[in-house]
């Protein structure tokens, strides 16, 4: 069943002119985007199968402007969809016709870097990669590294609690943020956390991270930066079967070894990626792991020796160590371009369930069966070390019947993830995509409690209102 959108509020649509005039009086002309042509760029995010034209788009450049706009929207009962770069794969930043899009992409400056305290204060619209680049000259980096890091913003990362390949060792966004400047719907600006650790009172910061733009608009953040290891080395391990690769991952972790990254690719993905990135991946294997170790040369060698020993016990067929920065980059290039490369051969939806490590092989197998039963193909590429799976279900976007099948297969897979003890989403978020599946993971009373918490921040449900929670059930207190 296609994902439902709420019926737009006629009264708000009717007031469009008035709303635009009102906003126009509050912000500079270049901040407010009205024309249909320009609005079109904001019609969807990376869940491109769905799109809706927003009332207007506002791109403020200061926290004060954000506050003014939100206050106006609250007073006039206008819905607001916060947006970073719009790379959400769950439809988290997809607008609706009776809402404005409030984008923070113009707020993209690094305000302060403090290497001694290992923190940086950044505007929320700065891209993830730009933060790492700004501190790289001192050997530092910002740890969470979604594959979309070139484009996605810290705001969106906070919205989705995004992760990436290196989160196995360094944690996800919530573990790397110390503070935010948050604008509440009524325009109030609050500072949560700061350059210090563990604020008193309830962990509002923990609640904001991953809240998918429903609790307030983040305009600045204090992030942790870390000194990079002396060296890092990705190594490719090829196996005949996915089961062997999966078992090897479990054995490595079971031995108390936590590499910085363990990435998994199945045969389908290897073929697609190699055809595009020419990363030098072997084509005669059934599954690949990229395992990255870091430290001094001696440390890396010692850890690799342990890992190789374990891999041999799991019938590894192919081992390729990167011997230079270029080779290392090639290995990662293949992985990082997997989504893009797949997009060139077919349309796909990218699922994002997490399962207990012991279930990896089982879920991979079941995923293959489920997708085959709908007559479709699947490519698996994911963060194996933390059980976060990304089946890419390939289909033809111009064929509504295929799209429906792909979505149904995706649903079956996610339900299975929950069944074996996992969850619906490990890093992409619920958005609109998994909204109606929430009842598979949560009891009604769990959802009601979450909605009551949400309502503390936004009693009228104006902020990103059609996301995360099933549409038929709106609690306010």
């Amino acid at each position, binding site marked *: 069943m296609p994902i439902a959108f709420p019926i737009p509020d006629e009264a708000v649509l009717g007031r469009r002119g008035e709303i635009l005039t009102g906003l126009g009086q509050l912000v500079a002309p270049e901040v407010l985007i009205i024309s249909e042509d320009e609005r079109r760029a904001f019609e969807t995010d990376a869940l491109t199968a769905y799109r809706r034209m927003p009332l207007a788009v506002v791109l403020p450049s200061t926290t004060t402007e954000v506050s003014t706009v939100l206050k106006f929207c609250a007073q006039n009962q206008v819905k607001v969809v916060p947006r970073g770069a719009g790379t959400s794969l769950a439809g988290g930043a997809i607008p609706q016709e009776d809402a404005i899009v409030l984008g923070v992409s113009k707020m993209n400056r690094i305000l302060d870097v*403090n290497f*001694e*305290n290992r923190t940086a204060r950044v505007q929320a619209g700065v891209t993830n990669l730009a933060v790492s680049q700004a501190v790289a000259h001192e*050997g*530092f980096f910002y740890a969470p590294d979604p594959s979309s890091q070139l484009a996605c913003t810290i705001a969106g990362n906070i919205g*989705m609690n995004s992760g990436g390949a290196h989160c196995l060792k360094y944690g*996800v966004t919530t573990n790397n943020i110390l503070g935010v400047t948050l604008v*509440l719907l009524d325009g*109030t600006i*609050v500072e949560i956390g*700061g*350059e*210090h*650790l*563990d604020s*008193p*009172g*309830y*962990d*509002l*910061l*923990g609640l904001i991270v991953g*809240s998918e733009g*429903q609790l307030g608009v983040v305009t600045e953040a204090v992030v942790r930066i870390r*000194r990079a*290891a002396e060296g890092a080395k990705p190594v490719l391990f090829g196996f005949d079967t996915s089961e062997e690769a999966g078992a090897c991952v*479990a054995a490595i*972790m079971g031995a*108390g070894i*936590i590499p910085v990254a363990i990435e998994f690719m199945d045969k389908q993905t290897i073929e697609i990626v190699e055809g595009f990135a020419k990363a030098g991946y072997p084509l005669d294997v059934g599954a690949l792991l990229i395992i990255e170790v870091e430290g*001094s040369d*001696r*440390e890396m060698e*010692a850890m690799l020796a342990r890992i190789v020993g374990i891999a041999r016990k799991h019938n590894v067929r192919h081992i390729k160590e990167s011997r230079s920065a270029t080779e290392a980059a090639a290995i990662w290039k293949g992985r990082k371009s997997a989504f893009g490369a797949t997009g060139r051969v077919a349309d796909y939806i990218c699922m994002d369930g*997490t399962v*207990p490590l012991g279930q990896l092989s089982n879920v991979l197998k079941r995923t293959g069966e489920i997708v085959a039963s709908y007559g479709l193909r699947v490519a698996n590429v994911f*963060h194996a070390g*933390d*059980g*976060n799976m990304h089946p890419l279900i390939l289909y033809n976007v111009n064929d509504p019947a295929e799209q429906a099948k792909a979505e149904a297969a995706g649903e079956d897979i996610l339900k299975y993830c929950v069944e074996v*003890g*996992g*969850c*619906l*989403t490990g*890093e992409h978020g*619920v958005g609109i995509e998994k909204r109606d599946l929430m009842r598979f*993971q*949560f009891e009604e*009373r*769990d*959802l009601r*409690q979450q909605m*009551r*918490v*949400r*309502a*503390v*921040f936004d009693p009228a449900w104006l902020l990103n209102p059609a996301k*995360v929670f099933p549409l038929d059930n709106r609690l306010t207190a």
Partner: protein
Amino acid sequence: MTRHNPTSEADACAIVAEAAAQRTPLAIQGGGTKRAFGRPPQFESTLSSSLMTKVTLYEPAEFVISTEPGASLSGIVRLLAEHRQELAFEPLDYRPLLGSDGEPTIGAVAAMNLSGPRRIAGGAARDSSLGVRFVNGRGEAIKSGGRVMKNVTGLDLVKLMIGAHGTLGFLTEVTFKVVPSAQRVATLCLVGLSDRTAIATLSAALGSPYDVSGAAHLPAKIGGGARTLIRVEGFPDSVEYRLGELRSLLKAFGTAEVLADGTGKDLWVAIRDATVLAEPRDKAIWRISTAPTKGPDVAALIARTIDARWFFDWGGGLIWLACSTASAAGAATIRAAIRQAGGHATLVRAPEDVRAAVDVFDPPVKAIARLQTGLKASLDPAGIFNPGRMFPEL
């Protein structure tokens, strides 16, 4: 006064529902070791986790453990150690400082977000928390999170419950991520440094690629001479290598000696539990969190007005400070210093009348207070859980 000892979540739901209907305040109790922490609560009955002590899931190969709240922390630590694993956040033990006895429970560790020296490398208790089950003030059993390492399904109520000091609900199950125990732990010590030089040393160590997992400074006033301590952990060969690199990196600050393993271990426990400040017992104890480089300024600023002793953990970002209980335990001075530097201060130990008169935690600004009151109402509408323990109004 009634003491409720539920044996199951369902049991706890019934007790809470009844208390909510009667508007009977419940003091949530684990091992009872933190009785002297926080604001003195007003309560009529206690709700104890003492009969809910089971480990419900432990998968060493998956680095995850779930337990009922009343399980003793020491039991969990022992169980994990059998599998060469541990809690990443190195929970502290307040008993020496508070002079209490009893068995600290894992539920209270979660409820208080207790974390020790490894906080700077391994995160706080909240960072290791994967999932919780709890009974809300409506008597409903609620779950949030789960048992997998990554989970962004819905709002993260886990974070909200961790550190809420039992004011939002009665935890019935907590699930933590665990880590492999280090095969070797070693400590470097530099002697005789001033606070400022010590923190610069620790910043240099923490800003190096050598994975420092403990960074503390004990000033001369603590006794035993000024000591600046840096800990590294991991595989033996790697630890050896990093010790060498750190010693040469830190040469400009002084000579760093490797401590004997036993001495190092004892020192980190003393730092973790702040036992170096436990005596004299009539002093108030504060725990102050600020940006690491601000640590020495904050301490110096406070010392201008009141007589105090202190030491630093978390690379300078955590100041443990002991001072007289007179003049509201120096609250005005301490909070003024924090306002200047950024951060917050918690009154960890003081006589009951002082804790009743002074804000134990930094009072929040109005907008945050409003959100907190809203959250309390949304989870505990009748206001029955630990009323007044964190803030007068919560």
